[in-house]
């Protein structure tokens, strides 16, 4: 079994990739995928520490997050599809209706 440090490192790397993806990419679809990546990075940490501490609470929490993530993806993808139909684009820079 890997050490907590290793797991933390992996988690940090995954989270950073996700965060960078959200901040850098302009494609809404990719941004969604990156957000998923960040969630999963957090899940890994939760599971690792649950194992480490010998309780199941962390694992249960991870399961909950996965559920939310699924819901989020469903809603998010639906929005993206609707957005594409309406505006014919998935580029986040084109969507600036809230500009002041």
């Amino acid at each position, binding site marked *: 079994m890997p050490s907590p440090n290793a797991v933390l490192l992996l988690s940090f790397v995954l989270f950073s990739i996700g965060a960078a993806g959200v*901040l850098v990419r302009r494609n809404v679809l990719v941004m969604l995928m990156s957000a998923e990546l960040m969630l999963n990075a957090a899940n890994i940490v939760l599971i690792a520490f649950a194992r480490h501490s010998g309780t199941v609470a962390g694992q249960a929490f991870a399961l909950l997050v996965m559920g939310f993530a699924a819901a989020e993806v469903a809603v998010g993808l639906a929005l993206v599809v609707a957005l594409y139909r309406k505006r014919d684009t998935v580029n986040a820079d084109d*969507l600036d209706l809230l500009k*002041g």
Partner: protein
Amino acid sequence: MTPEHAAAQTLIGAASTPWGLLALAALLPAFGALVNGLNGLLFRRRTGTGFTGTTFVNAVALGSVGLAFLIILAGFVKLLGMPAEARSLHADLWTWFDLGGARVNGGLATMTMKWGYKLDPLSACMGLLVSGAGFLIHLFSTGYMADEQKDGRYWRFMTYLNLFVFSMLNLVLGSNMMMMFLGWEGVGLCSYLLIGFYFEKEFAAVAGKKAFVTNRIGDFGFVLGFALLFMLFGSVDFDTMMGLVRGVSAAPSITILGHTASPTFWFNLAGCCLFLGACGKSAQIPLYVWLPDAMAGPTPVSALIHAATMVTSGLYMIARLNFIFVQAPLASDVVLVVGSLTALVAASMGTAQYDIKKVLAYSTVSQLGFMFMGMGAMSYTAGMFHVFTHAFFKAALFLGSGSVIMACHHEQDMRNMGGLRKAMPITFASMGLATLAINGIFPFSGFFSKDEILWKVFERWYHHGAYDGGAFYLMCWLFGVIGAGFTAFYMTRLIVMTFFGDYRGAGDDPHGLTVPSEAHHDDHGAGHGDGHGDDHGHVHAAADHGHDGLGQDDHGRDSHGHGDHGHGPAEVPWNMWLPVAILAGLAVVGGFLNIPHSLHVLGGEHFSRFMEPLLYQAAAPHGGAHAVPAIEYALMVFANVWALGAMALAWWMYKVDPSWSRPKAFVARFPNLFRWVNAKYYVDEFYEAALIGPCKQLSAQLWAFDTWVVDGMVNGAARATLLWAEASAWFDAHVVDGLVNLVAWVLQQASLASKTLQSGRVHNYAFVMFLGFVAFAVWKLLA
């Protein structure tokens, strides 16, 4: 119910016998009207017989009235079989309404009105007259209204007639004044409907309205009299009032309505109010104007309503309430003077009319005046007796004139008639006899009734050999006598113009007497609409051709072409001449029912004796108590000579010279006199100018007042509020709202700076979040 009431009720109620059939008699015509009316409205057919046809309508209408007549006849026979003091039958149906206690003279009375009928000598005679004459006139109508049987509104006529008989029976058979008022208004309504039967003719509709409204003016008096009587007696039941009247009149003074006065004062007041009601219904001065116009209705209506029955209801009311009038000397004098004036004035108008029905209408007004003279002289049986004889001969005359009019193709102008004697012998004989009766020639019925009235009036002046009655009564008597002379003149003139000479309607008119007639060119039933009407026509003719009032102008004649009728007048069918003949027969012999005491060799005063229990005896009856004065015989002879003289004058003027040169000469000599009489002294015009016009003007002014002042204040308030609102709005927009907008403007300017931060791009926001997170992390790690 007060105890007095109850006591009186037991006193008189005991003498009255319940007889339920009586109610049936009164209600049968209503039933007939209901059946015919609903049938006509819902299942009417244009022509044909059978269930919805003429036969059915006739069966219902005649059957119901005939049956009512038979029932009343049975009641009459029953009454004859009873002792004189107990001759009373009654049928109480239900309590109509009950208003509770009211303060009246002598305490408290319950204002309870019963729906009840009673049959006593007076109402039995009137009931027989109404239903009997009603039946005959229904019969006559089956012939006279033949055109209407074709155009589908015959049922309507018969419904109205039945409704009229119902109302009239309520009036005469009702056991209290409320029932009388029900009938009183009911006959007014039926009269309105029947006068306006040819409603397409504007003048017929107007005449109907005039009749109703004039009657309403009378009703005003009736209602006030009614209320006064209730206040005096605490009841309006005839028997109860009669039972109480002795006690009421014996009181030293009566306080009602916050005013104390002697019983005589109150009786006078009530009597005058009631007489106003009688003036309206019985067409006396000043309310007589509706009756001549009412001739716009079909002739049977004129006979039934405006000669035989309805117009006598005022007389019936006074006879019924004789116990009031006997103790109201002033009111009686008013009745007398109005009656005698009406008798004279209306008779004089009758001498200058050319419309055969108009002549009879004025004659009716005048004869009603005679009846009121009898009432005013407190000789109620004489007045009522004239009601009956007049009903016979005037109904005969009207129906006869109806036959004549029909025979002459709905021509009503006597100038276009003439020579009908040969063509219509039965009608001629009947009308001739009726004329002798109305002229008061011995021994026809009119003599007995009219002479009795004149004698009673004369007796007020001349009494027991002393001329102490005041010249007032002599004057009234003179009016009556002159009126009687006029009567004989115009009736003879009518007969001569109609039945003697040659028929002028077919174009044979050597003397140029005919006038253009509107009746001829629109065949009856086809075009009621376009006839402007005889009424107006004659007024205008009189105004236009006043100087040759006998109508020598025949310029319109040729254009109308009288010849197109093809056949001359002929006798009418049996169902028309039979009623006329029966009525004429009654007019001949009717007088023998009440032979005055002075002529007792011929018979007795059956009618007066029969009525006697209903008359209030203020003092011992003097009839028969003293010897007959010679002057009474002298006056009888004089009356006959006087009437015969007037007849001879008419004969001389219109028969002896067929070109009527003498009347023409008279008119030429006194053109203005003729014009005034022909135009009925311009009374209608006077009313129009003095009452109706101002009333309409006032109404228009009030309407303007309502629009401009009353509503103007409301709208003015609205306008002022609006102005105020505008000012407020300006203030609001510029001052109050200005402050608000200022605040908003400041805020807006401030926000312009910060708004650039809002890029609307998701990445910018995420980046800021990320920076924030980094900053937070750095701060946390460093701390």
